[in-house]
């Protein structure tokens, strides 16, 4: 690219923006497909979450006497408060949907491989951060689901041998879920939002250090041209964001029953558990794992390992080939993985039954055998073939 294109636009005075120009105007992009637009959708969702979150925070009271009524006041009496809250609640669903697709894209196209390990690791860290943030945020309205979701999760932490009890009292600041804990969850939720923004910046920096994966690189006719980010991918991302926003608005205006559970319209009652407890869909796979393992500690370890194994992925699959489309064994592995993720999600949302517990166990075995058996084997076979060549 011509070195002076930045100066040409009479922006010498604004040399502080040179980096922005390098990263969002001139940045050379390989021939990526529509799935590479999910990052822009995620940034949009995160921005809307931050905006609506700030406006929720100025109307929220983090103490157990007033939390629920302050949220109801916002819904019923603050002008457009219902819209701001719906944006935030629906935003969680949209953000996780885009996040899981984004990660699925990374798996399929081998975006986790060298030299993009740090892109992958920072992205997984972001996913974990969003899970904690979403969990803390779900407690804040102090409805029945908030309270009992938090109760179950804190008891899970408390069941960790040796350190569980003391860890829990450090987290809650007392023996049980009360005012101190609620205030902490509020501060945690609020602060993690900003930390997420910083991590997103780090994630993009890591990506721009090595550039995006080229999905066509291993095909018979690889497209090796690079195009400047602006206008080629700004326009493409803008179209994807428009579609994303259409689904988002459709969700919050026409399907509100999907984004808020009815049980959470009742204030928290520590003496009565609602008849059916189910997590938000984006945490359902891990909830299903807790159910599928017939041991309190075992379930925790399995659920945690299912995420940790993702962190190890760049070292489990060391094959130089990226795109699963040209690796038949790996592509069937990923299809199986996506199917088991979906199975676990549905199992986590269904009331517990022998059928769903059996299916979750099958999905769990598939989850771990793909990462620990299929991928290392396929990777070993690929390396052998490379050596032969």
């Amino acid at each position, binding site marked *: *690219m*011509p070195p002076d*294109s930045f100066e*040409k636009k009479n922006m010498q005075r604004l040399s502080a923006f040179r980096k922005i120009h390098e990263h969002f105007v001139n940045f*050379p992009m390989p021939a990526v497909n529509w799935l590479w637009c999910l990052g822009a959708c995620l940034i949009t969702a995160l921005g809307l979450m931050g*905006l609506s979150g700030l*406006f929720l925070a100025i*109307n929220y009271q983090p103490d157990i006497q007033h939390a629920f009524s302050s949220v109801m*006041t*916002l819904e019923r*009496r*603050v*002008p*457009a*408060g219902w*819209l*701001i809250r719906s944006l935030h609640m629906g935003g969680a669903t949209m953000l996780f949907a885009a996040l899981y697709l984004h990660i699925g894209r990374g798996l399929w196209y081998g975006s986790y491989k060298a030299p993009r390990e740090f892109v992958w690791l920072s992205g997984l860290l972001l996913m974990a951060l969003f899970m904690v943030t979403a969990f803390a945020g779900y407690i804040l309205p102090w409805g029945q689901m908030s309270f009992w979701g938090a109760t179950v999760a804190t008891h899970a932490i408390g069941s960790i041998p040796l350190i569980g009890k003391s860890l829990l009292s450090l987290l809650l600041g007392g023996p049980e879920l009360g005012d101190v804990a609620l205030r902490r969850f509020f501060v945690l939720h609020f602060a993690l939002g900003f930390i997420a923004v910083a991590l997103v910046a780090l994630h993009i920096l890591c990506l721009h250090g090595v550039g995006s994966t080229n999905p066509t690189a291993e095909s018979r006719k690889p*497209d*090796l*041209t*690079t*195009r*400047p980010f602006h*206008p*080629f991918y700004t*326009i493409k991302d*803008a179209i994807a964001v428009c579609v994303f926003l259409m689904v988002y608005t459709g969700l919050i205006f026409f399907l509100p029953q999907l984004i808020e559970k009815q049980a959470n319209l009742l204030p928290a009652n520590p003496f009565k558990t609602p008849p059916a407890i189910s997590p938000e869909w984006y945490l359902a796979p891990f909830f299903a794992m807790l159910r599928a393992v017939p041991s309190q500690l075992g379930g925790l370890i399995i659920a945690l390992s299912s995420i940790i194994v993702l962190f190890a992925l760049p070292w489990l699959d060391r094959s130089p080939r990226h795109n699963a489309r040209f690796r038949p064994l790996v592509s069937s592995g990923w299809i199986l993985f996506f199917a088991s993720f979906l199975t676990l999600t549905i199992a986590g949302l269904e009331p517990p039954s022998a059928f769903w517990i059996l299916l979750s166990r099958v999905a769990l075995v598939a989850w771990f055998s793909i990462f620990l058996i299929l991928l290392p084997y396929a990777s070993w076979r690929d390396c052998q073939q490379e050596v032969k060549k």
Partner: protein
Amino acid sequence: MRVTENLLSLINPAKAESCSFMSPKTPHNEPSDTPTSPTRRQVLTASTVALGGAGACTLAVPFIESLRGPEASLQQAGESEQAAFLDVDLSDLKPGDYKQVVWKRWPVFILHRTPEMMKLLTDPVLRARLSDPDSKICQQPKDAVNDYRSINPAYAILIGICTHLGCVPKFSDSRIPFLKGGLFCPCHGSEYDNAGRVLTAMPAPYNLPVPPARFVNPTTLRLGESAGDPHFTMNDIRQL
């Protein structure tokens, strides 16, 4: 790369131009000095940015609207607290004493004047130093437009909020020698006489507001209801 460029130029000449921008072989000779009509891309970019900006502005509307807070619908419904009365017993208030009560959300001062205080209010020397001696500006109900700014010369009934920037003044003797028993605002030094009339050359622009009030019996004052000006509301006051 050549092939793709040629293909692209068939579809969209502007695109091919942008592609050549990536290739260092082709010289980059953009006519920067001669004014040209905007390219198709510039028009598209401008209209996209305009549409996106309009969307952002639309999104801002509910957010800004929400800043009016949870009481917004009540404010819209008007003075729903119109019927808020407060009966104050004045039987224990000796001449020269005052009491402060809270009516609605305002501090109300009730001063029982001594005969000297009443006499001072009609003093021409004082009147010459007042900004609005005849209470022409609507800071009080019509039945309080008199030398005492009161329905009863023996009592001063004032809303204790300085008309400058909203501090609560206190009763104190003025720095001006002849003015005894007036009000002084500690924030920016505005001075009022004992009927809440502001002196000239003070930061405060108006006299202190007088609430609607009537005596239900000689020692009980009802705030919030005016006998002489029944349609008066606190919204009629110029500055509160």
